[in-house]
């Protein structure tokens, strides 16, 4: 048996141990990228094999947060794919403006780059005061990072370019303080943001949202789990509520997709069907 075939077996045992020992269910994660993450995690925690990681996971409670952080979506940037943010501002915000209170759910916020991006655009559109933004992730470690709002200064230039391409009206530097190699986003941007733990695999509806952003999260799910999450979004959205997915995501194989209609197919912005309960 080739080494990578043995690793396939080890990944299954690891996932089973994580479920039995800690209650986390990764059985409906797309196997190929899940395997890569588990291998990275083993290497980052100094384990020579996945089996060694599994063994430690069973016995060391303190290892769990690092494991969960390693298995969650880590990478994003501010205003990633600027055209999406421009479309939100131009096509979605005017509709949100008609509500006295606006609930927004960012599902899978990771380190918070997109939450802050959204907050800035809402601020500039004059909508922020009426917004309640729920930023959720299943990794507590990620939520702590998101709440801090501290990012490496080396990313500032790319973020600024994205911000302007997204239709930002000011200068991104108006919203952060840079000190040495780090930039900290203005804390006022999170005055209407609630960071909370939520796992799309097992947690349910907790708010009535006008807009849900969940970009590049469902790409890690199998069809079954993707469909489950879409159904959760459907049940969380108000009539005609908006859903924004990652710009290469595909919901063709999910039966829940019938409850959504694309309003900007290129940017993956959908609306819940008016006749969908």
């Amino acid at each position, binding site marked *: 048996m080739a080494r990578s075939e043995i690793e396939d077996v080890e990944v299954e045992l690891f996932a089973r141990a994580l479920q039995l020992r800690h209650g986390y269910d990764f059985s409906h994660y*797309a196997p190929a990228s899940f395997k890569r993450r588990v291998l990275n995690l083993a290497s980052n925690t100094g384990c020579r094999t996945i089996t060694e990681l599994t063994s430690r996971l069973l016995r060391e409670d303190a290892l769990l947060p690092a494991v969960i952080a390693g298995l969650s979506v880590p990478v994003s940037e501010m205003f990633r794919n600027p055209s999406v943010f421009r479309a939100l501002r131009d096509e979605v915000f005017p509709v949100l403006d008609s509500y006295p209170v606006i609930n927004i759910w960012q599902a899978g916020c990771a380190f918070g780059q997109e939450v802050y991006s959204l907050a800035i655009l809402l601020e500039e559109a004059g909508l922020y005061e009426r917004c309640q933004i729920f930023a959720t992730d299943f990794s507590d470690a990620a939520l702590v990072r998101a709440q801090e709002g501290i990012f490496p200064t080396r990313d500032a230039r790319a973020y600024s370019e994205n911000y302007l391409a997204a239709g930002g009206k000011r200068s991104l530097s108006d919203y952060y303080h840079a000190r040495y190699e780090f930039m900290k986003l203005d804390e006022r941007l999170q005055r209407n943001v609630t960071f909370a733990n939520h796992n799309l695999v097992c947690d349910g509806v907790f708010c009535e949202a006008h807009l849900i952003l969940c970009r590049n999260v469902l790409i890690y799910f199998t069809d079954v789990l993707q469909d489950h999450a879409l159904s959760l979004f459907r049940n969380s959205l108000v009539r005609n509520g908006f859903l924004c997915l990652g710009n290469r995501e595909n919901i063709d194989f999910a039966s829940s997709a019938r409850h959504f209609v694309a309003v900007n197919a290129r940017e993956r912005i959908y609306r819940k069907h008016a006749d969908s309960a």
Partner: protein
Amino acid sequence: MSATLKAVVMGCSAGGMSALRTVLADVRKDFCWPILVVCHTGSEDVTTFCDLIGMASTLPVREARERHLAQAGIVHVAPTGYHLLVEQGGRFSLSVDERVAFARPAIDVLFDSAAGVFGGGLIGVVMTGANNDGAAGLKRVRERGGIAIVQDPASAEAATMPQAALDIAGADHCVPLKGIAPLLNRLCQP
């Protein structure tokens, strides 16, 4: 099941567009395996990239779509900013995980996942490029019974990538650029 699935995976970087055009121009019109491509330099605007490759290619060239099946006789190109992976059954998945060898899409990620799905039914091709992405992936392809083709570094616009593949993975065939398509035409039978 995986024994019956077959595919070609190709990776290239600097000089990759021209290399792909050369190879795909000479691939048989009735080529009946899917071809999956990661090219670092082509990923800025993948639609334009597909068009430019497609003009030279005997086969249709399209962006690989999330959750869709790798199709026989189609060249599928990894989209901008995403790793392209193959899941059991031969469907595509995407990831925005960390860059690998400074690249996303990374050749290693595609090759590694494809090796797990196609096993002995996989042919990995590493061509011109200025870094060592693809070498580790090609090693996995061989470990799982697949065939490794490496462009002769002497014929490559940038020799680093094929040389790294030879050093780390070795090759079943090391041929000049012009020799790759005839070799694929011979190896990839229905």
